[in-house]
Protein backbone atom coordinates (compact mmCIF):
# COMPACT_ATOMS: atom_id res chain seq x y z
CA UNK A 1 0.00 0.00 0.00
CA UNK A 2 2.73 2.41 1.04
CA UNK A 3 4.68 1.48 -2.05
CA UNK A 4 1.84 2.45 -4.41
CA UNK A 5 1.22 5.67 -2.48
CA UNK A 6 4.87 6.55 -2.82
CA UNK A 7 4.74 5.82 -6.52
CA UNK A 8 1.68 8.05 -6.84
CA UNK A 9 3.22 11.01 -5.05
CA UNK A 10 6.42 10.54 -7.04
CA UNK A 11 4.60 10.61 -10.38
CA UNK A 12 2.56 13.52 -9.12
CA UNK A 13 5.52 15.75 -8.34
CA UNK A 14 7.18 14.61 -11.56
CA UNK A 15 4.19 15.62 -13.68
CA UNK A 16 3.75 18.85 -11.75
CA UNK A 17 7.33 19.79 -12.55
CA UNK A 18 7.02 19.10 -16.23
CA UNK A 19 3.81 21.06 -16.62
CA UNK A 20 5.07 24.21 -14.96
CA UNK A 21 8.33 24.21 -16.92
CA UNK A 22 6.50 23.44 -20.13
CA UNK A 23 3.91 26.10 -19.41
CA UNK A 24 6.53 28.84 -19.10
CA UNK A 25 8.34 27.65 -22.21
CA UNK A 26 5.13 27.53 -24.25
CA UNK A 27 4.09 30.99 -23.11
CA UNK A 28 7.49 32.31 -24.18
CA UNK A 29 7.15 30.66 -27.57
CA UNK A 30 3.70 32.20 -28.00
CA UNK A 31 5.10 35.62 -27.19
CA UNK A 32 7.87 35.14 -29.73
CA UNK A 33 5.35 34.23 -32.42
CA UNK A 34 3.21 37.18 -31.44
CA UNK A 35 6.05 39.69 -31.52
CA UNK A 36 7.41 38.44 -34.82
CA UNK A 37 3.95 38.83 -36.33
CA UNK A 38 3.47 42.32 -34.88
CA UNK A 39 7.00 43.33 -35.91
CA UNK A 40 6.37 42.31 -39.50
CA UNK A 41 3.13 44.29 -39.55
CA UNK A 42 4.22 47.39 -37.62
CA UNK A 43 7.39 47.95 -39.58
CA UNK A 44 5.60 47.43 -42.86
CA UNK A 45 7.77 44.49 -43.86
CA UNK A 46 4.53 42.97 -45.07
CA UNK A 47 1.76 45.42 -45.97
CA UNK A 48 -0.40 45.78 -42.82
CA UNK A 49 -3.58 47.03 -44.50
CA UNK A 50 -3.83 43.84 -46.53
CA UNK A 51 -2.18 41.27 -44.27
CA UNK A 52 -3.73 42.51 -41.03
CA UNK A 53 -7.10 41.49 -42.44
CA UNK A 54 -5.73 38.20 -43.72
CA UNK A 55 -4.30 37.37 -40.31
CA UNK A 56 -7.63 38.01 -38.61
CA UNK A 57 -9.44 35.87 -41.21
CA UNK A 58 -6.94 33.10 -40.53
CA UNK A 59 -7.53 33.32 -36.78
CA UNK A 60 -11.28 33.12 -37.29
CA UNK A 61 -10.81 30.10 -39.55
CA UNK A 62 -8.60 28.50 -36.88
CA UNK A 63 -11.26 28.94 -34.20
CA UNK A 64 -13.95 27.54 -36.49
CA UNK A 65 -11.83 24.56 -37.56
CA UNK A 66 -10.56 23.67 -34.09
CA UNK A 67 -14.07 23.87 -32.62
CA UNK A 68 -15.56 21.75 -35.39
CA UNK A 69 -12.75 19.29 -34.79
CA UNK A 70 -14.18 18.56 -31.34
CA UNK A 71 -17.46 17.34 -32.84
CA UNK A 72 -16.11 15.82 -36.06
CA UNK A 73 -12.56 14.75 -35.27
CA UNK A 74 -12.76 13.76 -31.62
CA UNK A 75 -16.40 12.82 -31.14
CA UNK A 76 -16.55 11.35 -34.65
CA UNK A 77 -19.86 12.87 -35.75
CA UNK A 78 -20.53 14.29 -39.19
CA UNK A 79 -21.53 17.92 -38.63
CA UNK A 80 -22.31 19.97 -41.73
CA UNK A 81 -23.99 22.97 -40.14
CA UNK A 82 -21.17 24.64 -38.27
CA UNK A 83 -21.75 27.96 -40.03
CA UNK A 84 -25.22 27.98 -38.45
CA UNK A 85 -23.69 28.25 -34.96
CA UNK A 86 -21.28 30.85 -36.30
CA UNK A 87 -24.21 32.88 -37.64
CA UNK A 88 -26.00 32.73 -34.29
CA UNK A 89 -22.82 33.92 -32.58
CA UNK A 90 -22.26 36.69 -35.11
CA UNK A 91 -25.80 38.05 -34.90
CA UNK A 92 -25.79 37.91 -31.09
CA UNK A 93 -22.53 39.82 -31.00
CA UNK A 94 -23.89 42.34 -33.50
CA UNK A 95 -26.99 42.94 -31.37
CA UNK A 96 -24.96 43.33 -28.20
CA UNK A 97 -22.60 45.73 -29.96
CA UNK A 98 -25.58 47.66 -31.24
CA UNK A 99 -27.36 48.06 -27.91
CA UNK A 100 -24.43 48.14 -25.47
CA UNK A 101 -22.24 50.44 -27.54
CA UNK A 102 -23.21 53.50 -25.53
CA UNK A 103 -23.12 51.80 -22.16
CA UNK A 104 -19.70 50.19 -22.63
CA UNK A 105 -17.05 52.66 -23.65
CA UNK A 106 -14.12 50.26 -23.70
CA UNK A 107 -13.77 48.44 -27.02
CA UNK A 108 -12.11 45.43 -25.49
CA UNK A 109 -14.82 45.09 -22.86
CA UNK A 110 -17.49 45.41 -25.54
CA UNK A 111 -15.87 42.59 -27.49
CA UNK A 112 -15.67 40.37 -24.39
CA UNK A 113 -19.31 40.97 -23.46
CA UNK A 114 -20.46 40.41 -27.03
CA UNK A 115 -18.41 37.22 -27.35
CA UNK A 116 -19.68 35.84 -24.04
CA UNK A 117 -23.28 36.45 -25.13
CA UNK A 118 -22.44 34.76 -28.44
CA UNK A 119 -21.10 31.78 -26.48
CA UNK A 120 -24.34 31.52 -24.52
CA UNK A 121 -26.69 31.69 -27.53
CA UNK A 122 -24.58 29.39 -29.68
CA UNK A 123 -24.29 26.98 -26.75
CA UNK A 124 -28.07 26.91 -26.31
CA UNK A 125 -28.42 26.23 -30.03
CA UNK A 126 -25.85 23.46 -29.59
CA UNK A 127 -27.93 21.80 -26.86
CA UNK A 128 -31.10 22.13 -28.95
CA UNK A 129 -29.48 20.51 -31.99
CA UNK A 130 -27.29 18.07 -30.10
CA UNK A 131 -30.02 16.42 -28.05
CA UNK A 132 -32.14 15.06 -30.93
CA UNK A 133 -28.98 14.47 -32.94
CA UNK A 134 -27.98 11.76 -30.46
CA UNK A 135 -30.40 9.38 -32.09
CA UNK A 136 -28.79 9.78 -35.49
CA UNK A 137 -25.39 8.89 -36.80
CA UNK A 138 -23.29 9.17 -39.90
CA UNK A 139 -24.93 10.59 -43.01
CA UNK A 140 -28.27 11.12 -41.28
CA UNK A 141 -26.69 13.36 -38.67
CA UNK A 142 -24.87 15.19 -41.48
CA UNK A 143 -28.16 15.87 -43.25
CA UNK A 144 -29.83 16.98 -40.04
CA UNK A 145 -27.08 19.46 -39.14
CA UNK A 146 -27.01 20.67 -42.74
CA UNK A 147 -30.74 21.33 -42.40
CA UNK A 148 -30.12 23.22 -39.17
CA UNK A 149 -27.58 25.48 -40.87
CA UNK A 150 -30.02 26.26 -43.65
CA UNK A 151 -32.88 26.92 -41.19
CA UNK A 152 -30.73 29.45 -39.35
CA UNK A 153 -29.83 31.20 -42.59
CA UNK A 154 -33.43 31.31 -43.84
CA UNK A 155 -34.71 32.54 -40.46
CA UNK A 156 -32.13 35.33 -40.38
CA UNK A 157 -33.08 36.22 -43.93
CA UNK A 158 -36.77 36.59 -43.07
CA UNK A 159 -36.82 38.11 -39.62
CA UNK A 160 -37.46 41.81 -39.11
CA UNK A 161 -35.05 42.23 -36.19
CA UNK A 162 -32.15 41.03 -38.30
CA UNK A 163 -33.17 43.31 -41.16
CA UNK A 164 -33.37 40.31 -43.48
CA UNK A 165 -30.99 40.22 -46.36
CA UNK A 166 -29.95 43.83 -45.75
CA UNK A 167 -27.87 42.64 -42.85
CA UNK A 168 -26.63 44.32 -39.72
CA UNK A 169 -23.72 46.69 -39.41
CA UNK A 170 -21.40 46.45 -36.43
CA UNK A 171 -19.24 49.16 -34.88
CA UNK A 172 -15.97 49.08 -36.83
CA UNK A 173 -12.46 49.37 -35.44
CA UNK A 174 -12.82 46.94 -32.56
CA UNK A 175 -11.15 43.89 -34.03
CA UNK A 176 -7.38 44.05 -34.19
CA UNK A 177 -4.66 41.48 -34.86
CA UNK A 178 -3.53 41.20 -31.20
CA UNK A 179 -7.11 40.79 -29.98
CA UNK A 180 -7.79 38.11 -32.59
CA UNK A 181 -4.52 36.37 -31.78
CA UNK A 182 -5.07 36.14 -28.03
CA UNK A 183 -8.72 35.14 -28.40
CA UNK A 184 -7.58 32.31 -30.65
CA UNK A 185 -4.92 31.30 -28.14
CA UNK A 186 -7.49 31.14 -25.35
CA UNK A 187 -9.90 29.04 -27.43
CA UNK A 188 -7.26 26.63 -28.73
CA UNK A 189 -5.65 26.17 -25.31
CA UNK A 190 -9.06 25.56 -23.74
CA UNK A 191 -9.89 22.86 -26.29
CA UNK A 192 -6.42 21.32 -26.08
CA UNK A 193 -6.47 21.11 -22.28
CA UNK A 194 -10.04 19.85 -22.32
CA UNK A 195 -9.11 17.04 -24.69
CA UNK A 196 -6.27 15.98 -22.37
CA UNK A 197 -8.62 15.60 -19.39
CA UNK A 198 -10.81 12.67 -18.44
CA UNK A 199 -13.72 14.38 -20.22
CA UNK A 200 -11.71 14.63 -23.43
CA UNK A 201 -10.69 11.00 -23.21
CA UNK A 202 -14.32 10.02 -22.70
CA UNK A 203 -15.23 11.86 -25.92
CA UNK A 204 -12.40 10.11 -27.78
CA UNK A 205 -13.51 6.73 -26.50
CA UNK A 206 -16.98 7.33 -27.95
CA UNK A 207 -15.41 7.84 -31.38
CA UNK A 208 -13.37 4.67 -31.00
CA UNK A 209 -16.10 2.33 -29.80
CA UNK A 210 -19.42 3.42 -28.32
CA UNK A 211 -20.36 0.04 -26.89
CA UNK A 212 -16.99 -0.45 -25.23
CA UNK A 213 -17.09 3.10 -23.84
CA UNK A 214 -20.46 2.40 -22.26
CA UNK A 215 -19.20 -0.88 -20.84
CA UNK A 216 -16.41 0.86 -18.91
CA UNK A 217 -18.81 3.36 -17.42
CA UNK A 218 -18.74 6.34 -19.78
CA UNK A 219 -22.07 8.20 -19.91
CA UNK A 220 -22.45 8.37 -23.67
CA UNK A 221 -25.44 10.72 -23.74
CA UNK A 222 -23.72 13.25 -21.53
CA UNK A 223 -20.44 13.27 -23.41
CA UNK A 224 -22.00 13.37 -26.86
CA UNK A 225 -23.97 16.46 -25.89
CA UNK A 226 -20.89 17.91 -24.20
CA UNK A 227 -18.80 17.48 -27.36
CA UNK A 228 -21.52 18.98 -29.49
CA UNK A 229 -22.02 21.95 -27.17
CA UNK A 230 -18.32 22.75 -26.85
CA UNK A 231 -18.03 22.77 -30.63
CA UNK A 232 -20.99 25.12 -30.94
CA UNK A 233 -19.93 27.52 -28.16
CA UNK A 234 -16.62 28.23 -29.80
CA UNK A 235 -18.26 28.54 -33.17
CA UNK A 236 -20.15 31.36 -31.44
CA UNK A 237 -16.85 33.01 -30.51
CA UNK A 238 -15.71 32.65 -34.13
CA UNK A 239 -18.95 34.27 -35.27
CA UNK A 240 -18.50 37.15 -32.86
CA UNK A 241 -14.96 37.76 -34.13
CA UNK A 242 -16.22 37.60 -37.70
CA UNK A 243 -18.93 40.18 -37.00
CA UNK A 244 -16.45 42.64 -35.48
CA UNK A 245 -13.90 41.99 -38.19
CA UNK A 246 -16.12 42.38 -41.24
CA UNK A 247 -18.28 45.08 -39.69
CA UNK A 248 -21.28 44.09 -41.76
CA UNK A 249 -23.02 40.73 -41.57
CA UNK A 250 -25.55 39.30 -43.99
CA UNK A 251 -27.22 35.87 -43.81
CA UNK A 252 -25.63 34.70 -47.06
CA UNK A 253 -22.14 34.74 -45.52
CA UNK A 254 -23.21 31.81 -43.32
CA UNK A 255 -24.55 29.56 -46.05
CA UNK A 256 -23.98 25.92 -46.74
CA UNK A 257 -20.67 26.59 -48.50
CA UNK A 258 -19.24 28.19 -45.36
CA UNK A 259 -19.98 25.02 -43.38
CA UNK A 260 -18.37 22.93 -46.10
CA UNK A 261 -15.29 25.18 -46.15
CA UNK A 262 -14.77 24.62 -42.41
CA UNK A 263 -15.40 20.91 -42.80
CA UNK A 264 -12.85 20.68 -45.62
CA UNK A 265 -10.25 22.39 -43.42
CA UNK A 266 -10.86 19.88 -40.61
CA UNK A 267 -10.68 16.87 -42.93
CA UNK A 268 -7.55 18.09 -44.67
CA UNK A 269 -5.83 19.08 -41.45
CA UNK A 270 -6.48 15.67 -39.99
CA UNK A 271 -9.60 14.63 -38.09
CA UNK A 272 -8.57 14.58 -34.46
CA UNK A 273 -5.52 16.83 -34.70
CA UNK A 274 -5.75 20.34 -33.26
CA UNK A 275 -2.44 21.48 -34.73
CA UNK A 276 -3.44 19.92 -38.07
CA UNK A 277 -6.60 22.02 -38.06
CA UNK A 278 -4.55 25.14 -37.28
CA UNK A 279 -2.10 24.57 -40.15
CA UNK A 280 -4.88 23.69 -42.57
CA UNK A 281 -6.94 26.71 -41.53
CA UNK A 282 -4.00 29.03 -42.13
CA UNK A 283 -3.15 27.40 -45.44
CA UNK A 284 -6.63 27.17 -46.90
CA UNK A 285 -7.53 30.73 -45.89
CA UNK A 286 -4.36 32.21 -47.32
CA UNK A 287 -4.12 30.25 -50.58
CA UNK A 288 -7.49 31.29 -52.08
CA UNK A 289 -6.68 34.94 -51.33
CA UNK A 290 -3.29 34.64 -52.97
CA UNK A 291 -4.80 32.90 -55.97
CA UNK A 292 -7.20 35.76 -56.64
CA UNK A 293 -4.83 37.26 -59.20
CA UNK A 294 -5.23 34.17 -61.37
CA UNK A 295 -8.94 34.90 -61.66
CA UNK A 296 -10.57 32.01 -63.46
CA UNK A 297 -7.81 29.53 -62.70
CA UNK A 298 -8.29 30.08 -58.99
CA UNK A 299 -10.86 27.35 -58.37
CA UNK A 300 -8.97 25.00 -60.66
CA UNK A 301 -5.74 25.30 -58.67
CA UNK A 302 -7.63 25.12 -55.37
CA UNK A 303 -9.38 21.89 -56.30
CA UNK A 304 -6.17 20.40 -57.67
CA UNK A 305 -4.54 21.13 -54.30
CA UNK A 306 -7.37 19.39 -52.47
CA UNK A 307 -7.04 16.33 -54.70
CA UNK A 308 -3.28 16.18 -54.20
CA UNK A 309 -3.65 16.34 -50.41
CA UNK A 310 -6.28 13.60 -50.43
CA UNK A 311 -4.13 11.40 -52.67
CA UNK A 312 -0.93 11.65 -50.69
CA UNK A 313 -2.26 12.29 -47.19
CA UNK A 314 -5.59 10.44 -47.08
CA UNK A 315 -5.86 10.92 -43.31
CA UNK A 316 -5.23 14.66 -43.60
CA UNK A 317 -2.02 16.60 -43.21
CA UNK A 318 -1.41 15.50 -39.63
CA UNK A 319 -3.66 12.46 -39.22
CA UNK A 320 -4.39 12.26 -35.51
CA UNK A 321 -0.87 13.34 -34.55
CA UNK A 322 -0.12 16.66 -32.88
CA UNK A 323 2.82 18.94 -33.56
CA UNK A 324 4.66 19.32 -30.28
CA UNK A 325 7.73 21.24 -29.27
CA UNK A 326 9.04 18.22 -27.38
CA UNK A 327 8.68 16.02 -30.43
CA UNK A 328 10.56 18.53 -32.58
CA UNK A 329 13.38 18.82 -30.06
CA UNK A 330 13.63 15.04 -29.94
CA UNK A 331 13.67 14.87 -33.72
CA UNK A 332 16.61 17.27 -34.01
CA UNK A 333 18.45 15.74 -31.08
CA UNK A 334 18.40 12.29 -32.60
CA UNK A 335 18.75 13.53 -36.18
CA UNK A 336 22.58 13.09 -36.38
CA UNK A 337 22.33 9.63 -34.86
CA UNK A 338 19.49 8.64 -37.15
CA UNK A 339 21.29 10.05 -40.19
CA UNK A 340 24.43 8.13 -39.22
CA UNK A 341 22.52 4.88 -38.75
CA UNK A 342 20.61 5.44 -41.95
CA UNK A 343 23.71 6.09 -44.05
CA UNK A 344 25.46 3.07 -42.50
CA UNK A 345 22.48 0.98 -43.47
CA UNK A 346 22.56 2.35 -47.00
CA UNK A 347 26.30 1.68 -47.39
CA UNK A 348 25.80 -1.89 -46.19
CA UNK A 349 23.03 -2.29 -48.73
CA UNK A 350 25.20 -0.94 -51.54
CA UNK A 351 28.17 -3.11 -50.54
CA UNK A 352 26.19 -6.29 -50.41
CA UNK A 353 24.36 -5.49 -53.62
CA UNK A 354 24.42 -8.19 -56.25
CA UNK A 355 23.22 -7.90 -59.77
CA UNK A 356 20.37 -10.26 -60.35
CA UNK A 357 21.45 -12.95 -62.77
CA UNK A 358 19.17 -13.57 -65.69
CA UNK A 359 19.01 -16.60 -67.90
CA UNK A 360 21.38 -19.16 -66.44
CA UNK A 361 20.96 -20.18 -62.83
CA UNK A 362 24.05 -20.37 -60.65
CA UNK A 363 25.66 -23.78 -60.56
CA UNK A 364 23.63 -25.11 -63.41
CA UNK A 365 26.01 -24.08 -66.25
CA UNK A 366 27.51 -26.99 -68.11
Amino acid at each position, binding site marked *: MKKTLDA*ISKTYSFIDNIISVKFIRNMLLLYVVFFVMMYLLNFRIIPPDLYGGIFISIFIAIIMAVSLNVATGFLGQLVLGHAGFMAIGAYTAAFVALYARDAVANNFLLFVIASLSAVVTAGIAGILVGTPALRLRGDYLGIMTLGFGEIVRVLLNNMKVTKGSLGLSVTPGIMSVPLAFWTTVVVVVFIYVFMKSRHGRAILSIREDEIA*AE*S*VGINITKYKIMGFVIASLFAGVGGSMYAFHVGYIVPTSFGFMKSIDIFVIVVLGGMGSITGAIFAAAFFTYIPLELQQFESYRLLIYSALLIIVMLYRPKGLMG*TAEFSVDGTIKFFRYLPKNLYNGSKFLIEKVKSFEFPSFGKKKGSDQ
Partner: protein
Amino acid sequence: MEILKVDNLSIQFGGLRAVDQFEITVNDNELVGLIGPNGAGKTTIFNLLTGVYAPTEGEIYVNGTSTKNKKPNEIVKLGSSRTFQNIRLFKDMSVLDNIRIAYHNRMSYGLIASVFKTSKFKKQEAESIAVARNLLDIFGMGEFENHLAKNLPYGKQRKLEIARALATDPKILLLDEPAAGMNPQETEELMETIKFIKEKFEVSVLLIEHDMKLVMGICERIVVIDYGKIIAKGTPQEIRTNKNVIKAYLGE
Protein backbone atom coordinates in the same frame (compact mmCIF):
# COMPACT_ATOMS: atom_id res chain seq x y z
CA MET B 1 -22.32 -12.32 0.17
CA GLU B 2 -24.16 -12.42 -3.11
CA ILE B 3 -22.49 -10.19 -5.67
CA LEU B 4 -24.79 -11.13 -8.51
CA LYS B 5 -28.30 -12.45 -8.12
CA VAL B 6 -30.58 -13.14 -11.05
CA ASP B 7 -34.22 -14.15 -10.61
CA ASN B 8 -36.49 -15.59 -13.25
CA LEU B 9 -34.82 -13.69 -16.09
CA SER B 10 -36.47 -13.86 -19.54
CA ILE B 11 -36.26 -11.90 -22.75
CA GLN B 12 -38.50 -12.16 -25.77
CA PHE B 13 -37.45 -11.07 -29.26
CA GLY B 14 -40.71 -11.19 -31.23
CA GLY B 15 -41.69 -14.85 -31.20
CA LEU B 16 -38.35 -16.05 -29.90
CA ARG B 17 -37.77 -16.48 -26.20
CA ALA B 18 -34.00 -16.19 -26.25
CA VAL B 19 -33.59 -16.51 -22.48
CA ASP B 20 -36.22 -18.28 -20.44
CA GLN B 21 -36.40 -18.17 -16.64
CA PHE B 22 -32.69 -18.00 -16.16
CA GLU B 23 -31.38 -17.74 -12.64
CA ILE B 24 -27.95 -17.62 -11.14
CA THR B 25 -26.26 -16.52 -7.95
CA VAL B 26 -22.60 -15.62 -7.78
CA ASN B 27 -21.03 -15.22 -4.36
CA ASP B 28 -18.06 -13.25 -3.19
CA ASN B 29 -14.80 -14.26 -4.88
CA GLU B 30 -16.37 -17.15 -6.75
CA LEU B 31 -15.58 -18.37 -10.26
CA VAL B 32 -18.66 -19.54 -12.13
CA GLY B 33 -18.78 -20.84 -15.69
CA LEU B 34 -21.67 -20.41 -18.11
CA ILE B 35 -21.60 -22.85 -20.99
CA GLY B 36 -23.91 -24.05 -23.70
CA PRO B 37 -23.97 -24.96 -27.40
CA ASN B 38 -23.87 -22.27 -30.08
CA GLY B 39 -26.91 -20.02 -30.01
CA ALA B 40 -27.94 -21.12 -26.54
CA GLY B 41 -28.25 -17.50 -25.37
CA LYS B 42 -25.06 -17.02 -23.38
CA THR B 43 -24.07 -13.66 -24.81
CA THR B 44 -27.70 -12.52 -24.62
CA ILE B 45 -27.55 -13.21 -20.88
CA PHE B 46 -24.40 -11.09 -20.66
CA ASN B 47 -26.10 -8.30 -22.54
CA LEU B 48 -28.99 -8.48 -20.10
CA LEU B 49 -26.67 -8.45 -17.10
CA THR B 50 -24.81 -5.39 -18.38
CA GLY B 51 -27.94 -3.48 -19.35
CA VAL B 52 -27.56 -3.55 -23.12
CA TYR B 53 -30.96 -5.28 -23.34
CA ALA B 54 -33.85 -4.71 -20.97
CA PRO B 55 -35.33 -8.00 -19.73
CA THR B 56 -38.96 -8.87 -20.52
CA GLU B 57 -39.30 -10.44 -17.10
CA GLY B 58 -37.18 -10.93 -14.04
CA GLU B 59 -34.81 -9.02 -11.84
CA ILE B 60 -31.05 -8.63 -11.72
CA TYR B 61 -29.27 -7.53 -8.56
CA VAL B 62 -25.66 -6.42 -8.71
CA ASN B 63 -24.11 -5.97 -5.30
CA GLY B 64 -27.58 -5.93 -3.77
CA THR B 65 -29.00 -3.20 -6.03
CA SER B 66 -31.57 -3.84 -8.74
CA THR B 67 -30.42 -2.91 -12.25
CA LYS B 68 -33.94 -2.18 -13.41
CA ASN B 69 -34.11 0.88 -15.72
CA LYS B 70 -30.39 1.45 -15.33
CA LYS B 71 -28.11 2.24 -18.26
CA PRO B 72 -24.98 0.18 -18.92
CA ASN B 73 -22.71 2.90 -17.53
CA GLU B 74 -24.73 3.05 -14.30
CA ILE B 75 -24.51 -0.72 -13.91
CA VAL B 76 -20.73 -0.45 -14.22
CA LYS B 77 -20.79 1.90 -11.23
CA LEU B 78 -22.59 -0.78 -9.20
CA GLY B 79 -19.55 -2.98 -9.67
CA SER B 80 -19.88 -5.18 -12.72
CA SER B 81 -17.51 -4.99 -15.64
CA ARG B 82 -17.30 -7.02 -18.82
CA THR B 83 -15.18 -8.02 -21.78
CA PHE B 84 -16.44 -8.83 -25.25
CA GLN B 85 -16.43 -11.95 -27.40
CA ASN B 86 -15.02 -10.02 -30.36
CA ILE B 87 -12.47 -7.74 -28.74
CA ARG B 88 -13.60 -4.14 -28.42
CA LEU B 89 -10.65 -1.97 -27.57
CA PHE B 90 -10.19 1.74 -28.27
CA LYS B 91 -8.02 0.82 -31.23
CA ASP B 92 -6.41 4.13 -32.12
CA MET B 93 -5.52 5.04 -28.56
CA SER B 94 -2.48 4.06 -26.56
CA VAL B 95 -2.56 1.01 -24.31
CA LEU B 96 -2.22 3.26 -21.26
CA ASP B 97 -5.10 5.50 -22.34
CA ASN B 98 -7.31 2.46 -22.89
CA ILE B 99 -7.03 1.68 -19.19
CA ARG B 100 -7.22 5.32 -18.10
CA ILE B 101 -10.60 5.67 -19.80
CA ALA B 102 -11.93 2.87 -17.64
CA TYR B 103 -10.65 4.79 -14.61
CA HIS B 104 -12.99 7.65 -15.59
CA ASN B 105 -15.63 7.12 -12.91
CA ARG B 106 -13.09 6.81 -10.13
CA MET B 107 -11.98 10.38 -10.81
CA SER B 108 -14.17 13.26 -9.76
CA TYR B 109 -12.72 16.52 -11.06
CA GLY B 110 -15.03 18.67 -13.14
CA LEU B 111 -14.77 20.59 -16.36
CA ILE B 112 -13.42 23.78 -14.78
CA ALA B 113 -10.75 21.86 -12.85
CA SER B 114 -9.51 20.28 -16.06
CA VAL B 115 -9.18 23.64 -17.80
CA PHE B 116 -7.31 25.35 -14.97
CA LYS B 117 -5.32 22.25 -14.05
CA THR B 118 -6.10 22.45 -10.34
CA SER B 119 -4.17 20.34 -7.88
CA LYS B 120 -7.12 17.94 -7.70
CA PHE B 121 -6.86 17.48 -11.47
CA LYS B 122 -3.14 16.87 -11.34
CA LYS B 123 -3.38 14.46 -8.43
CA GLN B 124 -6.16 12.39 -9.95
CA GLU B 125 -4.50 12.30 -13.37
CA ALA B 126 -1.25 11.11 -11.78
CA GLU B 127 -3.26 8.53 -9.86
CA SER B 128 -4.89 7.28 -13.05
CA ILE B 129 -1.50 6.90 -14.71
CA ALA B 130 -0.09 5.08 -11.68
CA VAL B 131 -3.06 2.71 -11.51
CA ALA B 132 -2.92 2.02 -15.25
CA ARG B 133 0.83 1.32 -15.13
CA ASN B 134 0.34 -0.90 -12.13
CA LEU B 135 -2.31 -2.92 -13.97
CA LEU B 136 -0.11 -3.20 -17.06
CA ASP B 137 2.78 -4.42 -14.95
CA ILE B 138 0.59 -7.06 -13.34
CA PHE B 139 -0.30 -8.32 -16.82
CA GLY B 140 3.33 -8.09 -17.92
CA MET B 141 2.61 -5.47 -20.58
CA GLY B 142 4.42 -2.50 -19.05
CA GLU B 143 6.67 -2.08 -22.06
CA PHE B 144 3.71 -1.70 -24.43
CA GLU B 145 2.10 1.28 -22.71
CA ASN B 146 2.73 3.69 -25.58
CA HIS B 147 1.78 1.29 -28.37
CA LEU B 148 -1.55 1.75 -30.10
CA ALA B 149 -3.99 -0.89 -28.92
CA LYS B 150 -4.60 -2.10 -32.48
CA ASN B 151 -0.91 -2.96 -32.92
CA LEU B 152 -0.83 -5.44 -30.04
CA PRO B 153 -0.80 -9.17 -30.78
CA TYR B 154 -4.11 -10.95 -30.29
CA GLY B 155 -3.35 -12.53 -26.93
CA LYS B 156 -2.20 -9.21 -25.49
CA GLN B 157 -5.33 -7.47 -26.78
CA ARG B 158 -7.39 -9.99 -24.79
CA LYS B 159 -5.32 -9.29 -21.71
CA LEU B 160 -5.63 -5.54 -22.20
CA GLU B 161 -9.39 -5.88 -22.36
CA ILE B 162 -9.39 -7.72 -19.03
CA ALA B 163 -7.05 -5.12 -17.54
CA ARG B 164 -9.35 -2.37 -18.76
CA ALA B 165 -12.35 -4.08 -17.18
CA LEU B 166 -10.45 -4.32 -13.90
CA ALA B 167 -9.66 -0.60 -13.90
CA THR B 168 -13.31 0.19 -13.14
CA ASP B 169 -12.79 -1.53 -9.76
CA PRO B 170 -15.46 -4.20 -10.29
CA LYS B 171 -16.89 -6.64 -7.77
CA ILE B 172 -17.75 -9.06 -10.54
CA LEU B 173 -16.00 -9.58 -13.83
CA LEU B 174 -17.99 -10.91 -16.78
CA LEU B 175 -15.69 -12.56 -19.31
CA ASP B 176 -17.24 -13.40 -22.68
CA GLU B 177 -15.19 -16.19 -24.28
CA PRO B 178 -11.77 -14.96 -23.18
CA ALA B 179 -10.01 -17.93 -24.81
CA ALA B 180 -11.63 -17.53 -28.26
CA GLY B 181 -8.98 -17.76 -30.96
CA MET B 182 -6.15 -18.69 -28.62
CA ASN B 183 -3.81 -21.64 -29.03
CA PRO B 184 -3.50 -24.25 -26.21
CA GLN B 185 -0.46 -22.59 -24.75
CA GLU B 186 -2.07 -19.16 -24.62
CA THR B 187 -5.20 -20.72 -23.12
CA GLU B 188 -3.08 -22.28 -20.40
CA GLU B 189 -1.55 -18.90 -19.69
CA LEU B 190 -5.00 -17.30 -19.62
CA MET B 191 -6.20 -19.87 -17.06
CA GLU B 192 -3.38 -18.85 -14.77
CA THR B 193 -4.16 -15.16 -15.33
CA ILE B 194 -7.84 -15.58 -14.47
CA LYS B 195 -7.02 -17.53 -11.31
CA PHE B 196 -4.46 -14.89 -10.40
CA ILE B 197 -6.73 -11.87 -10.85
CA LYS B 198 -9.49 -13.59 -8.91
CA GLU B 199 -7.16 -13.87 -5.92
CA LYS B 200 -5.32 -10.59 -6.37
CA PHE B 201 -8.29 -8.27 -6.98
CA GLU B 202 -10.77 -10.31 -4.91
CA VAL B 203 -13.37 -10.29 -7.66
CA SER B 204 -16.00 -12.81 -8.59
CA VAL B 205 -15.84 -14.04 -12.17
CA LEU B 206 -18.63 -15.18 -14.44
CA LEU B 207 -17.18 -16.80 -17.51
CA ILE B 208 -18.62 -17.81 -20.88
CA GLU B 209 -16.36 -20.27 -22.61
CA HIS B 210 -16.30 -23.00 -25.23
CA ASP B 211 -12.92 -24.36 -24.27
CA MET B 212 -13.93 -27.24 -21.98
CA LYS B 213 -10.42 -27.69 -20.65
CA LEU B 214 -10.42 -24.13 -19.38
CA VAL B 215 -13.93 -24.28 -17.94
CA MET B 216 -13.46 -27.63 -16.22
CA GLY B 217 -10.02 -26.55 -15.03
CA ILE B 218 -10.83 -23.38 -13.16
CA CYS B 219 -14.58 -23.02 -12.53
CA GLU B 220 -15.94 -23.83 -9.12
CA ARG B 221 -19.50 -24.11 -10.36
CA ILE B 222 -20.92 -24.42 -13.86
CA VAL B 223 -24.31 -23.52 -15.29
CA VAL B 224 -25.27 -25.09 -18.61
CA ILE B 225 -27.97 -23.59 -20.81
CA ASP B 226 -29.55 -24.68 -24.06
CA TYR B 227 -32.26 -22.83 -26.01
CA GLY B 228 -32.24 -20.17 -23.28
CA LYS B 229 -33.12 -22.62 -20.51
CA ILE B 230 -30.95 -23.97 -17.73
CA ILE B 231 -30.41 -27.69 -18.31
CA ALA B 232 -27.89 -28.39 -15.60
CA LYS B 233 -25.86 -26.84 -12.84
CA GLY B 234 -23.26 -28.10 -10.44
CA THR B 235 -19.57 -28.75 -9.99
CA PRO B 236 -17.40 -29.58 -13.03
CA GLN B 237 -17.51 -33.27 -12.02
CA GLU B 238 -21.29 -33.35 -11.96
CA ILE B 239 -21.55 -31.50 -15.28
CA ARG B 240 -19.13 -33.86 -16.99
CA THR B 241 -21.37 -36.84 -16.32
CA ASN B 242 -24.72 -35.09 -16.65
CA LYS B 243 -26.89 -36.78 -19.27
CA ASN B 244 -28.70 -33.61 -20.34
CA VAL B 245 -25.42 -31.86 -21.04
CA ILE B 246 -24.03 -34.71 -23.11
CA LYS B 247 -27.29 -34.81 -25.02
CA ALA B 248 -27.20 -31.05 -25.72
CA TYR B 249 -23.62 -31.14 -26.95
CA LEU B 250 -23.44 -34.48 -28.77
CA GLY B 251 -27.03 -35.35 -29.54
CA GLU B 252 -28.59 -38.69 -28.76
